[in-house]
């Protein structure tokens, strides 16, 4: 198990190096653009050359990359060229914000979807129609629309929740809760659609399997058959969807973050890419790779727990 995790992490490290290197290569064409943005509106080509040199962006790309990698290995991701703040802690602080909305949203979405999906699969009729309608609404109504309606109703008009901004949990737990509620609701609605459909589908399939009938012939109560046996077996495909949903929520949070003016990872990554803030882009890329690797690993380990056949030795 440990060996497996280590091997996967090693693959993650190799991927991280490859991805960051390719990103650096792609970025290398834009170093002068970055410097010109940095220097403000009325620059001359000579200014740009001077500053590019001062920052070391005129060295061979490979040298620069190895330099970056050397620092990154020691945990030093450099400082942002635009805010002059250290990249590593800044990236982390933005991840905290996005996690604060994505994680609760996913948790709630999973709980609701699984409940709904199981309910729909084991009792057709009204529950099934409710589950399918929720999927439909989630698919058809863009999150942006939900977001703006919620803001206008609950923040601007009723003033129950703040319209924008993020409060650190340690500063004020209540403030934190109020600041994440609306974005979480938006993401829950968006995330529930596919998870509910998936859980419903795999539960229906699972409940039609032979072992379910055999469990019934053993006189076991329906609750145990559905919730203990079928749900666990349906969990494996659902887990894949959940992990993909997590990555997707995380990476698409930029729009929601913009609407709620949350200083999250998505909008941070987006603005750094727009400015071509090279140290930040590299940090963001690295963190994304790590995140994807870790989430996939967690999903696979969890899958191994749920599904003994998938367990690796």
């Amino acid at each position, binding site marked *: 198990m440990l060996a497996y995790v280590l091997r996967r992490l090693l693959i993650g490290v190799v991927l991280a190096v490859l991805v960051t290197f390719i990103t650096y290569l792609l970025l290398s064409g*834009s170093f002068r653009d970055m410097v010109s943005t940095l220097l403000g509106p009325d620059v001359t080509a000579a200014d740009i050359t001077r500053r590019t040199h001062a920052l070391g962006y005129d060295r061979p790309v490979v040298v620069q990359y190895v330099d970056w990698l050397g620092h990154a290995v020691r945990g030093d991701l450099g400082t942002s060229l635009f805010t002059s703040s250290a990249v590593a802690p800044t990236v982390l602080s933005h991840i905290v914000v996005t996690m604060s909305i994505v994680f609760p949203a996913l948790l709630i979405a999973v709980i609701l979807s699984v409940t709904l999906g199981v309910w729909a699969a084991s009792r057709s009729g009204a529950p099934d129609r409710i589950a399918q309608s929720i999927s439909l609404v989630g698919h058809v*109504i863009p999150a942006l629309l939900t977001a703006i309606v919620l803001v206008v109703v609950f923040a601007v008009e009723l003033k129950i929740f703040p319209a924008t901004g993020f409060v650190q949990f340690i500063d004020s737990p209540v403030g934190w809760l109020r600041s994440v509620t609306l974005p979480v609701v938006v993401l829950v609605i968006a995330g529930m659609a596919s998870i509910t459909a998936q859980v419903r589908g795999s539960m229906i399939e699972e409940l039609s399997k032979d072992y379910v009938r055999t469990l*019934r012939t*053993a006189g076991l109560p329906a609750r145990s058959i559905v919730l203990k046996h079928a749900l666990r077996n349906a969990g494996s495909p659902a887990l894949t969807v959940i992990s993909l949903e997590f990555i*997707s929520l995380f990476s698409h949070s930029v729009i929601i973050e913009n609407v709620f003016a949350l200083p999250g990872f998505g909008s941070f990554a987006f603005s750094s890419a727009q400015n071509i803030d090279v140290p930040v882009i590299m940090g963001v*890329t690295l963190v994304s*790779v790590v995140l994807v690797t870790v989430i996939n690993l967690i999903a696979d380990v969890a899958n191994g727990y749920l599904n003994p056949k998938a367990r690796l030795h």
Partner: protein
Amino acid sequence: MSTTLIPEPDDAQISVVPRRSVWRHLRRDPQAVATAIILIVLFLAGLLSPLISPHDPNAASLDAINLPTGTPGYLLGGDESGRDILSRLLYSFQTATVSALIGASVALAIGVIAGLVGGYFGTAVRSSTEWLFNLIMTFPGLITLIVLLPLTHGDYRWTMLVLGVLMSPGTYRIVRNLVLGVKKELYIDAAKVSGLGDVRILARHVLFAVRGPIIVNTAFLMGSAIAAQSGLAFLGVGAKDVPSFGLMIYSGFNNIYASPLQFVWPCISLGIFTGCLVLFGNSLRDAFSGPRIKRQKPAQGLRLVTSAIPTSVVTATVERDDEPMLAIEDLGISFPGTTGAREVVKGVSLTVDQGEVVGLVGESGSGKTQTAFAVLGVLAPEARVTRGSVRLEGRELVGLSESALRSLRGRVVSYIPQEPMSNLDPSFTVGSQLTERVRHTLRVSRRAARQTVLDLLARVEIPDPPRVFRSYPHQISGGMAQRVLIAGAVACRPRLLIADEPTTALDVTVQAEILDLLRDLQKEFGMAILLVTHNFGVVADICDRIAVMRGGEIVETGVTREVFRAPRHAYTRGLLDAILDEGAPAGGDASTVGAGR
């Protein structure tokens, strides 16, 4: 932003083989029809936008700025630059359609080809494709697209090309997994034996076989591409001279307090477009996974669906000593079919006495298994008992509630299935499954249940009970799994055991052992057994009496020896004649030679 832009649908439920009824299935699915019609209308609107748009989508008139909805000439009003919203909306459908086509075809081209190659060839090829797609998957998509802007010049078509590459890992994984499955299909081996080249096999056999899920995936890819294109345009990544939902939503969003409808139109259009694609994809998936009969409320108990309840049902509910263990009278079971209900069991009558072993024999499709399921009350949800009665020690089962049936199952009547592997829950250890059963029916402590289970495992002659106790079903052999199921079935000393082809999936030597075990247990507990089988050898080995079924009817019953010696019905005779060991070899010492079924 990383991995794919939109989560890939799970492919686990997609069956590999597209069936002919896909088209018919789609036509009958209201969701498929509705979404398909909407999609066709939207595609057409996009296609014909140059013809039907009242204005050039970029024509800006200073006099049309923020015109309200319903202004003549500007049906949906003008936007903040004085462009006609309706025209821009129509052109946006075109942009969305083109985006969907480019994004999906690039993802498909790359994902399908790599998936075919990666899945079909050996592990060396596969591990390199794996690496490649892991790499693509790990790329933070949004950043990549922005960084590549100098190359794509913001043209949404180039952007969609890149996006297609970024989306390809999802398709790759689906295709690869399918190909890994298809590769094991014997017709691929047959093609190889015929000398077909790899390319031909891939193109003709493998690709053809996996096309269903690919088509389904296409719908999702298109939805993802449109959503991604809109998202990028909304964020301002890319050119602004091509109208798109994202751009319209962006300007509408910034103008939301001045004229909210400018925001609502593109939002709803986009939602309907992508939503329909996803929903249509879901319908396609349902269609490809075969004609799933409309789900009905799962059968709760064993309910009779005809109004005419036979008198016997009403009267014979009192338990009497002289009642047989099991008495089936005129039992009818039907399934809903495409042309109305189809009766698969047509008035079967059968009795099993206390401690008696009865063989229910017939070929596939004769209705023997459904008869057995009816006794257990575990018929498929859509199955209906149309007539007759099933009495267990005099107690009428037809009409009994699920909870009443549940109290009988495992205690009075028990079941051994045909396929040992698929009848054990793959996710729990053998021990925990058996313990749960024992605890539930015997109401004992965990520790006591554990001991009971270990004793049972020893009783069914499992060599190392503690090891099997700890094992998961896939870690033990088929014969062992069947012993486990038998242990579970006899755990509570049921008075009737329903064994549905209990040895068919096993090797002959194992079969002989299992039959010995069943015989010993039957004697020890004095159980009655209803043995469903197609194997006359098995019947000869263990059954006291035999009932032969054909086409949902019992054609002959009798004491085993008599039926074998002098079959009365022609069908029985035919079956016995087909047995290959007739005409024993010369010098036949029957006990040492001759083998047969």
